[in-house]
Each structure stands twice: as C-alpha cells, then as structure tokens.
C-alpha cells in the first residue's frame, strides 16, 4: 500500500471515528461510509442494505442516490450478491458478468445496464447475527486485492457499530430497537426528499443533496432535519432558494 493511500485511509478512519463520538446521525454516517469506499477502494459505487427484520433488505445508504442504482439495490430482495451474503453471513464475490449472469440473471442484467463488471458483498455482522451487507460495484473485471477487501470489511464493521451505538453492546434487544429506528429514519428521509423535490421541482438526488448540505452547514442531524421538513416545522424554502452562503453564518463548517 502506498504511503499516500495509507494517509487517505487513516484520514477516512479518523473522520468516521469523529462522527461516531457524539450526536451523529446514523444515516449520514452510513452515506459517508459508502463514499469512503468509493474514494479508497478500486470500486465505482457502494451501497448498504440492512435487514428490516421482516424478511426484506432495505437500502440504507449509497455512494450515489441515483434512482437507477437504487433499483439495483432493491432488486436484491429477490436475488443478488447482497442477499446471498446476508443469508450466508459470508463475503460474496463475482468477478465478471458471465459469472453474475449465471448466479443472478435479473440482477446481472440491471448491473450491466449500469456498466458494472464486478461486485463484492461483505456482511455486516454482530457476533453470530448478520444484519445486512455492504455492496461494492466495479466498472472493471476482477476481484479486489486482499488488502482492499480487509479495508472494506473493516468499513462494514464500522457501519455495524455505528448502527448499534456504544450503549447497545450489552443489551441484545437493543439491536432490534436501533435497527428499527435506523430503518424509520431512512423512510423519513425519503418522505422529506419528496417534499423538497416537489417544492423546488428537483429530482430525488438533488433533493437529498439539499437536505444533506443544509444539515451539515447548520450542524443538524440529517434525520431530525428530514422530520422537520415533513412535519413542516422548518420552512423548506430555506433549503431551496438559498445558495450555499450558509457558510458565512457558520464559520465552523469546513
């Protein structure tokens, strides 16, 4: 591993650890994590799916909110590497299209549309339980180097910890409580994207970016802000009209 890459890796983990300390938003954290995957690893897109404890996998975060990418993740409730990984609790690797087409025909067809050649799925595990999986998509054929895979698994482990939070560790029932809270936060964010998208005539990706930018520049948790948008306790026009001048009011935002 080059020293430059080590530096990037170290910074990424420091950044993630920082967000874990206090008052972090789990969905925001998971999004950041998928972005880190794309920055650090030889992959072009990353997404995280969690079990909803009702037999389905739900998309929680992705390196891009592109609706076509979401489609790919949603498909995995029927078939795909993430589903296999979740069920087996073990990493699933598919190095080329021919292999993927054989194992998951529908998934492979959609992945081909998106221009992906390879896919890796790594489990989000807590002791003996698998709560979801991290998906990594590459535009090139071939498996990730072992070093990359170890980094990816470490990032998946960070995701598990961030979902559970520190107080969860000693109480088994907290897993269900935290997981359901995280899943519901994701739903609130989708509802808020709809409100903002309609108010500002934005697509859902743009709506998400406005929401996230506003949360960051105002030091608010993403899910709390999303709830305020849906409940109408914040004027959505703040997020729609204002160009990124928020920095001028908040010098702490970098």
């Amino acid at each position: 591993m080059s020293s430059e890459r080590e530096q990037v890796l170290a910074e990424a983990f420091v950044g993630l650890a920082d967000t874990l300390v206090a008052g972090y938003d789990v969905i925001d954290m998971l999004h950041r994590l998928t972005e880190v995957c794309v920055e650090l690893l030889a992959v072009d897109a990353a997404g995280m799916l969690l079990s909803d404890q009702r037999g389905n996998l739900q998309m929680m975060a992705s390196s891009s909110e592109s609706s076509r990418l979401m489609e790919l993740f949603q498909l995995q409730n029927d078939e795909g590497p993430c589903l296999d990984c979740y069920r087996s609790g073990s990493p699933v690797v598919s190095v080329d299209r021919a292999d993927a087409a054989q194992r998951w025909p529908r998934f492979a067809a959609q992945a081909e549309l998106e221009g992906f050649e390879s896919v890796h799925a790594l489990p989000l595990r807590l002791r003996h339980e698998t709560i979801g999986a991290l998906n990594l998509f590459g535009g090139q054929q071939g498996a990730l180097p072992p070093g990359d895979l170890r980094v990816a698994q470490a990032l998946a482990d960070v995701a598990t910890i961030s979902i559970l939070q520190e107080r969860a560790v000693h109480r088994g029932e907290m897993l269900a409580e935290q997981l359901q809270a995280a899943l519901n936060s994701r739903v609130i964010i989708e509802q808020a994207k709809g409100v903002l998208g309609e108010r500002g005539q934005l697509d859902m990706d743009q709506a998400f970016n406005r929401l996230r930018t506003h949360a960051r520049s105002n030091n608010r948790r993403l899910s709390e802000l999303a709830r305020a948008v849906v409940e109408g306790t914040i004027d959505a026009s703040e997020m729609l009209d204002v160009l990124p001048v928020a920095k001028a009011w908040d010098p702490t935002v970098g």
Partner: protein
Amino acid sequence: MFDLDTFATGLAGAAAQEVDGGAARICELCVSSLPVAGAAVAVMAHVNRREVVYASDDVANELEELQFSLGEGPCVEAFGTGRPVLVADLSLVVDPRWPIFAAAAARTTARAAYALPLQIGAIGIGVLDLYRVRGGLLDATQLTGALMAADAILWSLLRLRAGVGIDDGAADGARWLTEGRRSHTAVHQATGMIMVQAGVDAESSLARLRGFAFVNEKLIDEVAGEVVARRLRFDERAADDGVPTSGGGH
C-alpha cells in the same frame, strides 16, 4: 411453536376483513399465536393525547392507563422515540426512563413488555403494546411477527382514520404485507410530493395514494412510481374528490 407463515396469513386476513375491528382482531391473533399474555393498541395524537382503541384483558388495559396517567413507560417511550422498546424484565429493572411506572407495573402480573410503534417515517399514529407474565424477550422470528402485526394495525387504523369505506379499503392492508419484497422507497417519496401538491399532512397524503391505487386496481408502488416520475399529480382542487390529474405540470 410459532409459525411465521401461518401468522402472516392470519394477519393479512384480519387486516382485510373489517374496517373498525382490524386492530382488535390483530391483537387477538398476537395473543393466540405469540408467547404473550395480552395486547393493546393506543392511538396517539401526541404523547399526552391518546386513546386505547383495544385491550385484550384488564392487565393490558391497566398498563395502558398507568402509562397514560403517569406520562411515562415503554409505550410512551416508543411513541416519543419512534423505536421499539423491548423490556425483558419489568419487575427487576427500574429503568431510569420510567421509574414510577416500573414500581406501579410491578404490582400487576406483567413481567415483560414490548412496545412497537405504529409508524411509517414521520407518520406515527400509536403503539402496539404486548405484555407477558414471565420475563424474557421474543426470539427473532417472534419479533418479526410482532413487527408485522404492528404494520398490519397501522394500515388498518390509517384506513379507518382516512374514512375509507370497507368496500374500497378492503385488503389493501393485506396487500402491503403481501406485495412482495420491496423497499417502497417510491411510496415514501411520493408521500412527500403529494403533501405539497395537495396541501395535506403525511398521513392524508399516504391515504390518498393508497386509495387511488386501490380504486385503479394498481399496486401502491406502481402509482407512487408515476408520481415520482411526475406523470401523475394529486392537486389540491382535484384531491377534494380524490381524483388526481394526469400529466400535469412538468
């Protein structure tokens, strides 16, 4: 032995069958199928305004009333935080979240309590409360069943509150449960969009979406997809008689 498939089929039937009795029937199903002694449903406008719409027995009712009068307890916590609250031992754990309730609950026969919020994102309408006389937790499969029961009650109550008649509303709660393995992402996005188009709150918005899907014999996800793609609008005026407009706007 709890069988999830049988339970899910029972839930779909109960949700489809009747408008006002849906919550009661689902509670009865929980008591007969899950290892719990009683079940209750509290509908809440906010933490201090609520109504017990069903309680399967006196203890279930008493637990509701206690929390209502004390303003604390697992149900209050579940509604306020939007997360399930699973208490394995009510008698031993004096939870700092509900010190007075814990003492009062110890005088009932209830030893474990599970409070499951009835919610979809920012739409939160109440809580499903389950209790049992011996301590411990539900196992993973039983918890799945309890979460599905909460979903089914939510749909049953949404239909009731939206004033949707039994003829058009029947089976749509069951549909949500059986529509397959979906994320319903578009449904949540469309809920937000229709809120703005029709000038209604999230709950009414979802009810309109669902009503339209039912009347047109489409899946709610399909209709939601049309809304997100901006091929279907639910405008303010048109929404008065529940008729959305097609191809408007953009």
